[in-house]
């Protein structure tokens, strides 16, 4: 029966090629616009570490008090040195790390090569297991290296390629800011987007690579300055990078891993207790106003997904709806034009369900054709976002199997939906009237 409906549908579509092309074009463009913007939205709103994001938390401490809070009473979204170090020393979470962005120079070995600039983070040893950083060679450093402020470094596979031709470089040394660091680990390809462990300094997305990770206290010791944002509520009393460490300016990111609800509430209590201690000590003149957000909540509160992306998706969905309304109108016209044919079929004993099957098959074919066209156009769309969108976001949007399937599915399902009402109307055609009028 289906092949018969297929034949009928194809014949009907051939009878009015203009209308058919119009519907296919409308569906194709509508689906392509939605899928292209969706591919961007999917790229920027994805969970960078889905298997673990609910266990990662970002603490915020209100070290500035009422005058430094944002309009909605939020404490600063980064940490000052004193408080970050207090949290690090207390070591109340399963895993934790203070971190800051650095941008040191690296001098490649070999004559005639110019120094290069790399970016990365100064972190504690627990950073690597906490963010599940994948290693190609070696591993992170141990907490003894943290304490000894050892000159060790974890480098990216990209930097390893550049400096050592991709060989296992564990144990070899890299010259960073004119000092030698021993490589203890080489990361696998790892470029989480958004850069969840330091959203404040990267703005979420970064086209740059993270090339080096150094022990935090080592970086502080050698005076490697922070490369990211620094926010102050008052001018630091002392100058230099050391002055920054003694000030209440915020420039550090902090992340903790807490494995269950009990650990989360214990850590919350610890933060409040810490703030109360600071209040009693006279450092804070206000009640505790801390935050402890899980990673998804944190990304949300930092507005990592650009509002342009959301608005584009919304507008593109609007376009899809218009295309569907358009298709529904055209299908309605097309189906009702064949009232007499329907009348004859019904009079000859066809059930309403048979009419449904026949016309939904026709709608489905249009949907499928629109989907195929939409697929091609989505390919064009995704390829062209690279010259339309900012580089760091555009590079994330890509066409993959799930998107392909989704495109076809959305096109077909949407067209079937659009075809429902016209088909319903077609199935309601009274055979007697149609037969009489002829």
């Amino acid at each position, binding site marked *: 029966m289906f092949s018969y409906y297929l034949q009928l549908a194809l014949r009907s579509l051939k009878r009015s090629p203009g209308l058919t092309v*119009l519907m296919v074009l*409308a569906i194709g463009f509508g689906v392509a616009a939605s899928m292209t913007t969706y591919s961007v939205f999917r790229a920027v709103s994805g969970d960078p570490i889905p298997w673990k994001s609910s266990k990662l938390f970002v603490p915020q401490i209100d070290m500035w008090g009422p*005058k430094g809070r944002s309009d909605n009473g939020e404490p600063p979204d980064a940490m000052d040195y004193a408080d970050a170090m207090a949290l690090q020393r207390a070591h109340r979470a399963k895993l934790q790390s203070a971190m800051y962005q650095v941008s040191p120079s690296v001098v490649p070995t070999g004559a005639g090569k110019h120094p290069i600039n790399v970016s990365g983070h100064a972190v504690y040893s627990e950073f690597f297991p906490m963010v599940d950083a994948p290693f190609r060679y070696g591993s992170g450093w141990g907490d003894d290296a943290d304490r000894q402020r050892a000159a060790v470094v974890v480098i990216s596979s990209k930097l390893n390629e550049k400096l050592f031709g991709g060989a296992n470089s564990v144990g070899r040394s890299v010259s960073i800011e004119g000092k030698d660091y021993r490589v203890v680990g080489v990361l696998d390809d790892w470029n989480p987007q958004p850069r969840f462990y330091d959203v404040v300094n990267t703005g979420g997305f970064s086209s740059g690579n993270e090339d080096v990770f150094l022990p935090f206290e080592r970086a502080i010791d050698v*005076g490697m300055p922070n490369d990211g944002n620094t926010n102050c509520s*008052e001018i630091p009393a002392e100058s*230099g990078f050391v002055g920054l460490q003694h000030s209440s300016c915020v420039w550090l990111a902090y992340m903790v891993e807490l494995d269950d609800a009990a650990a989360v509430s214990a850590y919350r209590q610890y933060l409040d207790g810490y703030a109360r201690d600071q209040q009693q000590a006279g450092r804070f003149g206000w009640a505790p106003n801390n935050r402890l957000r899980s990673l998804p909540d944190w990304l949300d509160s930092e507005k990592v997904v650009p509002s342009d992306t*959301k608005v584009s998706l919304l507008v593109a969905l609007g376009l899809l709806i218009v295309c569907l309304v358009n298709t529904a109108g*055209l299908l309605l*016209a097309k189906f009702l*034009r064949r009232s007499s044919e329907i009348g004859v079929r019904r009079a000859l004993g066809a059930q309403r369900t048979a009419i449904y099957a026949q016309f939904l098959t026709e709608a489905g074919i249009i949907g499928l054709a629109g989907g195929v066209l939409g697929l091609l156009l989505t390919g064009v769309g995704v390829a062209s976002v690279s010259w339309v969108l900012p580089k760091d976001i555009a590079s994330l949007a890509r066409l993959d199997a799930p998107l392909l399937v989704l495109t076809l599915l959305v096109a077909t399902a949407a067209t079937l939906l659009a075809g429902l009402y016209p088909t319903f109307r077609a199935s309601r055609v009274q055979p007697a009237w149609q037969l009489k009028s002829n």
Partner: protein
Amino acid sequence: MTLHPMIAALRKHKAGVVLIALQIALTLAIVCNAVFIIGQRVQRVNRPTGLDESNLMLVTQQWVGAPSGDQPGDVDKLDSLQQADLAALRNMPDVASVVPINSLPLLNSSWNGSAALKPGTDLRGGNARTTYYFGDEHMLKTLGVKLVAGRAFTAADVQHRGFRDQGEPPIAIVTQALADKLFPQGAVGKVMYLDGSGTPTTIIGVVQRLQVPGTGSWTNGFVWNATLEPVRLNANFSRYAIRTKPGRLQAVMKAVTPVLYGVNPMRVLDDDSVKSFADIRAEAYRADVGMAVLMGVVCLILIGVTAAGIVGLTSFWVGQRHRQIGVRRALGARKVDILHYFQTENLLIAGIGAVIGVLLAIGLNLWLMHHYEMDRLPVLYVIAGVAAVLVLGQAAVFAPARRASNVPPVVATRSV
């Protein structure tokens, strides 16, 4: 022509009318808001920075193993590195002038604070937010910024200090916007206090216009508030804004890297280090241009689909009423009456769609205002949108209506 028979006819195919009106309404709502977004982005991208942007470029570089600035004598060492670079750059044949500077408008790196009329005001308080540009006596000339009152910096005014060292300069130049905010009666010679400090800073000059670095929405409150300080900042990195002689920009961009390596090879200079201001501008507004292009494409598709939809549906109706048209023609209706019939019918449907569309457009705008950073949709856009969909409807209906008017009266006599 009375509307009554037309409405009676439309009631015969309610669903089609509702769908086409709904389509027009949605199109109007989306196109109004999308065009508004395009208009806003175009306006943003076209605002002048205050710089003379042609023949202007920026070099960003970092010294390897340079002193951190925390030890005594570090700042002087860093300053001599910078002075050597400046001398070499100023010596280049195609270079008109050079200034060491911390940032430029549209660049994504800034130093911001506040200016107050009273000393010791809170850093986050003050009378106005401002961005800071630190540079030497060549600043105004190199940037091409126009001085409208007072005087420019001289070599004697220029100090130098560590990047992270504190200290307010005794004199500064401000932009007209900041001057108007602080001292509406004229700012030259007046005293302000920067970043809540107790040290007075005297305004010696006012420049017409200079935009802040960064283009994010967080700068919206102080886009034109800038304070220029006669200070060379010393850090392990430096930025040099270079004005080349007319037409020599490409030549200098190519020549500058070897010149700086010649002064001192222990530095980082890569592909991103040398940028023309045009590059900086393109990068800064990429997202805005992209959004405008995307909205433009969506609008074009929408208008195309809706116009095609109207053509398709009207053609269908014309075919369906072939015989009735023949009857009307046989009863004495002229061709133009038939044409007008379909045109009026379309005007009626598009009009209903437009009314609903205006409500949807305003609703969508309010929703976007509430959830995203969006301004209120000006009435002009809505009126233009209504006019546009009505014209679109008329344009789309013309061909099928023409065809209808060409139906010969003899059709009435033929049986089907």
